[in-house]
């Protein structure tokens, strides 16, 4: 396969970036998207050029670091997967592929396709935890949890914090991420104790770092690689009102 890549190149956080065009020949449909970028970088290094900087770690779809905006979609055009799981068989021979970093004020570009997602860490450290002393694992049946609640809490907890929701939202809103992190505790008895403080602190931090607000367009849910549901946002809103 032959592809034309249009990749955002930006030397550092303060530099003015621009799109560079790269022709890729002999791209195998069996390749992963990141492997294709690895192949491009190998070539660039051999040509004594600066390789394209992009985040990646586990390449198993669980770390959430490989976020990049591909042809109008966070993590590419295939639903419910991360960029590292994106295969080149989903692209056509001769296609032009636009690759951009996440765009949001709280996610400034560090270099090329890498953005600083510390804003998510700040929200998480504001209240996304349960204050208990660690020790040996408690008896699982000491506190009974309905199966439906634990399932829902788990479905929220699988958010990998990749930022695709922010990238997809026209308002650069982080409400899907924040609501998932609030929901995973709100649904469980252990999380209820600090529920009010948690939602207040996390929402306050979310606003403070400069994310937009939710317009209920559903773009975040449609593009989330872990299919986190919009119902989390409604739950976060309820939790917030209850915290008054």
């Amino acid at each position: 396969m032959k592809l034309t890549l249009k990749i955002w190149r930006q030397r550092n956080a303060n530099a003015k970036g621009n799109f560079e065009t790269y022709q890729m020949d002999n791209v195998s449909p069996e390749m992963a998207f990141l492997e294709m970028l690895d192949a491009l970088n190998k070539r660039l290094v051999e040509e004594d050029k600066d390789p394209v900087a992009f985040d990646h770690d586990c390449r198993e779809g669980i770390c959430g670091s490989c976020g990049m905006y591909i042809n109008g979609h966070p993590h590419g055009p295939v639903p419910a997967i991360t960029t590292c799981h994106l295969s080149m068989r989903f692209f056509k021979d001769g296609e032009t592929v636009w690759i951009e970093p996440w765009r949001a004020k709280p996610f400034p570009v560090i270099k090329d396709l890498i953005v600083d997602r510390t804003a998510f860490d700040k929200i998480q450290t504001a209240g996304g935890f349960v204050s208990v002393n660690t020790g040996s694992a408690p008896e699982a049946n000491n506190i009974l949890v309905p199966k439906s609640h634990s399932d829902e809490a788990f479905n929220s907890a699988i958010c990998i914090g990749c930022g695709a929701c922010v990238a997809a939202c026209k308002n650069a809103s982080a409400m899907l991420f924040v609501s998932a992190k609030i929901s995973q505790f709100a649904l469980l008895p252990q999380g209820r104790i600090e529920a009010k403080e948690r939602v207040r602190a996390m929402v306050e931090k979310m606003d403070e770092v400069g994310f937009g607000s939710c317009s209920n367009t559903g773009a975040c849910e449609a593009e989330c690689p872990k299919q986190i549901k919009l119902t989390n946002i409604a739950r976060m809103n309820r939790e917030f009102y209850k915290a008054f």
Partner: protein
Amino acid sequence: MSKVLFASISKKFVMALAGLFLLTFLPVHLIINFLLLKNNPEPFNKAAHFMATFPLVKIFEIVLMAAILIHVMYGIYLQISNWLARPVGYVSGNKAETSFFSKFMIWTGATVLTFLVLHFFNFYFIKLGLIEGDPENFYSVAHNLFKIPAYNYIYLVCFFLLGFHLYHAFSSAFQTLGLNHRIWTPIVKKVALFYAILIPAGFAFISITLWLFR
């Protein structure tokens, strides 16, 4: 406490409540407007007089104006904040599968607001005595306006866009208030569609009837 009151969610909560309140007023206005179809001006003028003078309605009017003001001001404020949250956009656009109407709320809202200002100049400001006109004969004011083709074009376009605005606004308000339910949310969305078609269609029917068939 002040941080909670001025949080983005709180602003959206107030905006949603104001919006839902405005939704209750539209059917009332539509029912009164249907009296314009009668050849006798008296029922419409009586209804308009009642709306202008009855004390309970006067209280309702104050709340209504406050709701419009809050809804518009918070809408503009949140939209500007949202624009600021993404100073650099995407070259490859946004191809996420979303509700079509939800993407243009600020623009459909701005169109409706522009119409509202025009509407106020035609009727409400006369009632308040701010501009000249006969507040006791809004029937003929309305009939005269609907005889102007350009007014009808503007009217129909605005109500078409109002339908778009209402469709997303109706269900979105429930989500913002935290009212999302496995069974009820799909029903709310169906009611929203029904409401968003029925209300503008009713207003458009009156406009077309008075314009082309009277």
